[in-house]
């Protein structure tokens, strides 16, 4: 009986907030594949964000990057997205790095000189069927001793 109750509780907890759509699942799988491909050796956590945007809309979020660590910042999007722009912003809001040539898989490499909060902005430059889902992963690669 206890086993049944535990299983029911797990099933109830495991239910997603809102049933995921095909495109959302697609993006999350792609983010995971990108993280696996980058092959992190760092013990720092991978930061992931996802969402949806219509054509020409932008979204931003902040994350802390640790001094002396190299990062790969990867963005992916669903099948209907044709162009995605990825920008890393300094704490003051100015552009540090921008990738807009890789169409639907932009990747930025960045070595953090100081530990601080950086901004990451993604712009949906081309989406054939609005809205398009996107996912971003900030993957710490390795810490280089100073």
């Amino acid at each position, binding site marked *: 009986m206890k086993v049944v109750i535990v299983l029911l509780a797990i099933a109830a907890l495991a239910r997603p*907030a*809102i*049933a*995921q*759509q*095909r*495109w959302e699942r697609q993006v999350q799988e792609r983010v995971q594949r990108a993280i696996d491909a980058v092959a992190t050796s760092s013990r720092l956590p991978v930061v992931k964000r996802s969402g*949806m945007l*219509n*054509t*020409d809309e932008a979204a931003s979020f902040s994350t802390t990057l640790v001094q002396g660590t190299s990062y790969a910042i990867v963005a992916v999007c669903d099948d*209907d997205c044709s162009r995605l722009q990825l920008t890393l912003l300094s704490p003051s809001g100015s552009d540090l790095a921008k990738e807009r040539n890789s169409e639907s898989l932009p990747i930025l490499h960045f070595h953090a000189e100081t530990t601080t909060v950086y901004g990451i902005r993604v712009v949906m430059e081309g*989406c*054939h*069927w*609005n*809205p398009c889902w996107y996912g971003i992963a900030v993957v710490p690669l390795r810490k280089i001793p100073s």
Partner: protein
Amino acid sequence: MASLKRWVVVGVTACSVLALAYLPPRGATASGRSFFMAQSRQGTRARQRAQALADQWRGADAALRLLRARREVQELLREAKAGTSLVVVSESADVTTAAPPIADSAIHIAWRQLGLGETKVRVAVIIQLAIVSPVHDRPTIEAGIAAYLAPDSTDRTTCIAVLPSGNYWTRFFRGERRDGAPFAFEALVQTLKSGLGPCAFYAAYGTPGKSVRAWLVARGWDLALTLDAGARGPYGNSLIEMTDRRYPWFWEAVYSVPPTAVACLASRPTGCRAAVLAGASDDPSIPFPDLMRIDRRWGRVPRVVEGQRFLGDVARAVGRDRFLNFWTTALPVDTALAAALKRPVGEWTADWQSGFVHPIRLGPAPPLGGVAIALAIAALAVALVGVTASRRQVR
């Protein structure tokens, strides 16, 4: 002197014949009111004021209902299984319940008939059942006016439609009317299919680009009310298509639509272009929340005859990819639509319009009898002059 008298007689006779030919024989004056068009008598000022207030109340009530539904829909979607793009409930007297099974079945058939499966923008339909006992403290719900809430005003992926079902369908859902059930079920499918309105376009093609969306909002989505209206029927959906142009009510129906629509009925590309592109702006703005209230009642005056199926027909004509390029464009509407059609908008629309109504003739069009009489008078006058000239003697 005798010659002068003869000319006076000829002149008076010619004027009389002309008057007989061109003046209305019974001296009828044009009546201000329409003979055949479905029009109600103009009410008193107090009644007009009451009706305007009632309409405002209905608008506010629909907005409130949609915003409340926004919360309830999240619960429904949470309970829905993955891949579900259509959820349906019913509502009566502000209480939400499961949709009647027959309505649920009909709308899922309509969904499939529209070629919709799992879609990026989901649709939540609230079927508003008519209240059995009449209430006197508020205006009655108009069965033909549906309300919609665009995805950007919900969670960005859900379009909400509130469809008042009216007395007939409410009784049908309750099992009180099952006469001619198979026919009624098919009619219900069609009613719900067209009731999906703008939400069907959102489901099929996603959220439109800013210029297209602002254009449609400015026009009240009148060109995108029916995603798939099916084949053109023999009788059409308006009085203009149904009546014979030999009768005066055809022309009354024609001149009840805006001048640009009349020009389009005459296959004039400039008129068609103006009728279709009205509302397109270089500086698009979209309200928030983006509520759409659409009047589908019989007798409303369209901006373009059969305009409710215009974008559905464009999509079918150009194919999904080209239509999506237009739908999500960042270009101005006229440029994007012409690019999708690969033709000037006016020319394509004029051809499309002539598929419903054989082009009418505008401008001077004298009646055949009048032309015959005028020609006869002209011939008589020429003959008289000829005869007079031949008998003239110079002394």
